């Protein structure tokens, strides 16, 4: 998107940043020179640096250098000029005191932080973790919802239009409705259709699977996409679906598949064994309008195989097969467009009540996540955000606790300042500056942490067929978020300490009785520890619940054994094999070849796999119902498989026999059914073998049951067992298949499997070979993500809470050393002292633990759909969290307690 302007200007930081830097530097020539040098450094960092983060790095270096110069250059030169000017000039300098004072305070604050390096390090690290986690999640939110898509011009004018049903949902559209929308001039200047497609591109070393879109020519106009070569799609006379036989390639496809051949425009390429003329290559930045998915090519909607095989898509208002994009006319708003679209839909509902009743439309601005997926994705991200905000609150409470302790420890110093005439405002500013420095340092480290963590996320390894790549490098928005968050944190953690210190009278602190006598401070600290414990136990509970649900998931009987099975997908309809007559012989040869690979125990082909999130349902009519003339179905899920399927997946046979080679075209139609099918069979389980049913419709073909196998989980782990019917692939042909192979040993068969298939037909395009464990693992991916995130974030929070408890108990022990000494002098034994301190610690923590437990259960309730049926107050998880927090409290308070008990009473009394 960064097109060079007419005159290349050197890259400089934004004007406001330069203005801030100028303020930090001395007035006059010296400051000008210093700023100029900083700007040169910045430019050098930007031009010489590598990676997309270099501007950020340069910006932060620029700011930190300016801050450093404020302390090492501006301040000394001001003192110097004041000294040189002598007392007579004091009045002139008064205007400078505010900024000079702030700089002085900054210096004092930095010094006071440096004096206690351990406390400062703990504070900065806690903040870094809290801010880093929040920033990491926010950078995902940024990429998924906020960042503009590359290569699209004026994205704020592009909208997605979805069909609603009674005002709900965001679904695909019907072609005739689309045409009616399009005929209305007004708020929308372009309307376009798109639907996804996949292709197999013929290449020398086997075919290549590519994901792309079928689009109307208006698609590119709606998005404002320009071609880098050639011209985009043309309309044709009869409709808006576009000319046929041509294709637009993405810049990436052109580079990677055609080697960037300059003569590509006008050349022919083979897609799904058909020849298409390349008319254009898109702008290099443009990757399609779905965030992270790199569309390989764009084909006119008129070439869509769906329209070819079922032209009623264009004439029947009941068929919804298209997605709609639009561009707002200049000066018009999305709300106007929405009103206009709604009016059209209302009119249609009146004109065509049969098809269009209850049908409406909604408009959302175009974003990386398509309109239909925005709800669920937004929900999941909100929950992740809630988790890290809890963590951030816990860390802020932790650091606020540390700051309050620090202020108490410095009561004498602060009291002296007050007594010597330092204004309370000034004191407040000093303490706030300390908090600010801590927060900024924590924010800087947190930002770096977030960058590293987010970069480590690798979506390319997800076993999905499309090329999916999100640019997760942080941008200025993420940086700004982190910065503002750090400022907020500074206020949160600085205010209590500052308030407390600046409202105290100066006298007592100096006399030595101290502010300790006023109990507010320890009350504040109790609150902080409470908040920390609450946050930590909430996170620990969420983590515990997800770990428990994963444990439960591993105990669910799936009915098959995924270990040792590898798989790859192939689609013969894309490869030019017409129907069963051409497809089956090829598939037989493929299976024979794959089973010949050394180490392969058994191989099979099937339409569907268990736990792959997909299902194919239909209905069957038992013979008795058909005879009785009952016009109803028995709903079942179905799959078409080759004979080796059950052995490959180790699905146990319960009754009868499995498919054999003889169950092919021309022989009697047969089926293997699942245990649940047999149990729900009208005549009972024992009567199912040999029984017959009509398959697919009321007058479908008759099929006989030859065997019963164990139930398998079809879509997801939480599915209840449903009736399932397996048909032999040879009798019920299906071109879109998965090849599964079981290895006898541990070896990785990926390469062999691929090679074996390509030996049969080198132009076949296969999906990447993955294991069945990977595929079925997709079903528990959200649980695993939540468990890992909860565990990591929760452990940090627990660690911080432990430190906080330690701090409070240690402080109390020091405060009460006189009392403890007295008690021991009067005969209390050490054990009793330790026990009493531990009891106090538990009393301190208990409210936080209860609140945290409830908070955690609340969070878990929101996440209930992911808990695999586990109760949000699962006793095992709750007890585990309580025990963990209990152990933590004991551990954190044991050391100070023992130290207190080992004090010599005489010494303790004398010290006071």
């Amino acid at each position: 998107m960064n097109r060079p302007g007419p005159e290349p200007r050197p890259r400089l930081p934004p004007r406001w940043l330069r203005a801030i830097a100028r303020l930090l530097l001395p007035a006059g020539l010296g400051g000008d020179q210093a700023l100029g040098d900083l700007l040169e450094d910045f430019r050098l960092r930007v031009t010489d640096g590598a990676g997309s983060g270099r501007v950020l790095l340069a910006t932060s270096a620029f700011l930190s250098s300016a801050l450093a110069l404020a302390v090492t250059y501006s301040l000394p030169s001001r003192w110097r000029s004041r000294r040189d000017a002598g007392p007579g000039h004091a009045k002139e300098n008064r205007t400078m005191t505010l900024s000079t004072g702030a700089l002085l305070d900054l210096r004092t604050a930095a010094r006071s932080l440096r004096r206690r390096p351990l406390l400062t390090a703990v504070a900065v690290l806690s903040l870094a973790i809290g801010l880093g986690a929040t920033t990491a999640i926010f950078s995902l939110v940024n990429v998924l919802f906020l960042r503009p898509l590359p290569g699209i011009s004026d994205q704020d004018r592009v909208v997605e239009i979805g069909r609603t049903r009674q005002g709900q949902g965001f679904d695909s559209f019907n072609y005739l409705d689309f045409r009616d929308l399009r005929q209305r001039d007004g708020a929308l200047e372009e309307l376009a259709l798109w639907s996804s497609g996949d292709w197999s591109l013929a290449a020398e070393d086997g075919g290549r699977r590519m994901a792309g879109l079928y689009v109307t020519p208006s698609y590119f106009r709606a998005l404002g996409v320009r071609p880098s070569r050639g011209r985009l799609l043309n309309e044709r006379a009869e409709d808006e679906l576009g000319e046929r036989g041509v294709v637009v390639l993405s810049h990436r496809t052109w580079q990677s598949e055609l080697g960037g051949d300059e003569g590509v425009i006008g050349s022919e390429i083979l897609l799904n064994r058909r020849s298409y003329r390349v008319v254009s290559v898109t702008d290099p930045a443009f990757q399609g309008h779905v965030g992270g998915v790199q569309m390989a090519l764009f084909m006119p909607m008129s070439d869509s195989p769906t329209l070819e095989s079922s032209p009623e898509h264009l004439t029947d208002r009941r068929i919804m097969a298209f997605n709609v994009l639009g561009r707002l006319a200049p000066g018009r708003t999305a709300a106007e467009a929405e009103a206009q679209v709604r009016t059209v839909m209302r009119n249609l509902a009146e004109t065509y009540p049969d098809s269009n009743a209850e049908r409406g439309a909604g408009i959302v601005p175009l974003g990386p996540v398509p309109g239909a997926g925005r709800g669920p994705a937004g929900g999941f991200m909100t929950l992740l955000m809630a988790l890290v905000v809890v963590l951030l609150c816990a860390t802020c409470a932790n650091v606020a606790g540390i700051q309050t302790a620090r202020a108490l420890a410095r009561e004498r110093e602060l009291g002296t300042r007050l007594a010597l005439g330092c204004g309370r405002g000034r004191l407040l500013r000093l303490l706030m500056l300390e908090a600010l420095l801590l927060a900024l340092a924590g924010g800087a480290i947190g930002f770096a942490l977030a960058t590293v963590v987010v970069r480590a996320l690798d979506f390319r390894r997800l076993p999905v067929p499309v090329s999916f790549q999100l640019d997760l490098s942080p941008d200025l928005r993420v940086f700004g978020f982190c910065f503002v968050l750090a400022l907020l944190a500074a206020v949160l953690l600085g205010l209590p300490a500052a308030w407390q210190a600046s409202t105290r009278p100066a006298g007592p602190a100096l006399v030595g009785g101290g502010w300790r006598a006023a109990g507010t401070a320890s009350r504040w600290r109790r609150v902080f520890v409470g908040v920390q414990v609450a946050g930590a136990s909430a996170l620990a509970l969420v983590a515990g619940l997800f770990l428990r649900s994963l444990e439960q998931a591993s105990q669910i009987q799936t009915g098959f054994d995924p270990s040792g099975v590898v798989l790859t997908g192939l689609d013969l309809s894309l490869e030019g094999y017409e129907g069963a007559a051409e497809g089956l012989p090829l598939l037989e040869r493929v299976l024979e070849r794959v089973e010949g690979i050394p180490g392969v125990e058994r191989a099979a082909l099937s339409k569907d796999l268990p736990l792959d999130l997909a299902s194919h349902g239909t209905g069957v009519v038992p013979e008795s119902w058909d005879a009785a003339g009952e016009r109803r179905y028995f709903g079942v899920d179905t799959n078409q498989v080759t004979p080796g399927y059950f052995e490959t997946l180790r699905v146990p046979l319960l009754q009868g026999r499995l498919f054999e080679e003889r169950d092919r075209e021309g022989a009697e139609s047969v089926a293997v059914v699942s245990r649940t099918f047999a149990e729900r069979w009208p005549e009972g389980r024992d009567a199912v073998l040999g029984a017959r049913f009509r398959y697919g419709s009321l007058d479908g073909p008759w099929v006989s049951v030859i065997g019963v196998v164990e139930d398998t989980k079809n879509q997801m782990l939480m599915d209840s067992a449903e009736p399932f019917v397996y048909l032999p692939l040879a009798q019920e042909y299906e071109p879109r298949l998965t090849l599964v192979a079981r290895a006898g040993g541990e070896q990785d068969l990926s390469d062999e499997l691929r090679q074996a298939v390509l030996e049969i037909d080198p132009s076949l395009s296969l999906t990447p070979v993955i294991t069945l464990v990977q595929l079925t693992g997709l079903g528990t991916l959200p649980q695993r993500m939540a468990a890992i995130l909860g565990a990591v974030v929760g452990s940090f929070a627990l660690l911080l809470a432990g430190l906080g408890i330690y701090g409070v108990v240690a402080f109390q022990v020091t405060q009460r050393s006189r009392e403890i000494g007295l008690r021991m002098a009067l005969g209390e034994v050490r054990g009793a002292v330790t026990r009493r301190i531990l009891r106090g610690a538990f009393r301190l923590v208990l409210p936080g633990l209860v609140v945290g437990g409830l908070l955690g259960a609340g969070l878990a309730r929101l996440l209930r759909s992911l808990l695999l049926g586990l109760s949000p107050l699962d006793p095992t998880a709750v007890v585990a969290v309580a025990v963990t927090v209990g152990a933590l409290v004991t551990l954190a308070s044991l050391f100070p307690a023992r130290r207190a008990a080992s004090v010599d009473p005489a010494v303790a009394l004398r010290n006071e």
Partner: protein
Amino acid sequence: MYTLSGARTATPENPTSEIDPMPKSFVIGELEQIVLLALLRTRDQPYARSIHRAIAEVAPRPVSRGALYRTLDRLEGKGYVASEVEDGPLERGGMARRRYRATPAGIAVLQEARTLLRRLWSGLDAFADEIEAES
């Protein structure tokens, strides 16, 4: 850090010093000396940034930018360094910069410092070798 003012070696506690009290013009700090020498090394680019870089290349410990600016200001005040203001190029946002040069007085003071060091080291060659061998 010791200074080359010479005053320390000629204290009343050390009356046996052979060194004469130094003239006033000789007062120059270690950092000032480093900056002056670095300025002489950056012949074609005598600007603050280049001087900073030249110091970073040879100095045992880093010198902060702020300290450098302050030292340059001080040297200019003492008359050891003179500067002309130049309009800045586009890449520094048009910000002015100073082109520094060492004045004859500055070069003389460096010369004196060097002579002093030579004199202090003379006759200590064996010791110098020993130090070198140790390091």
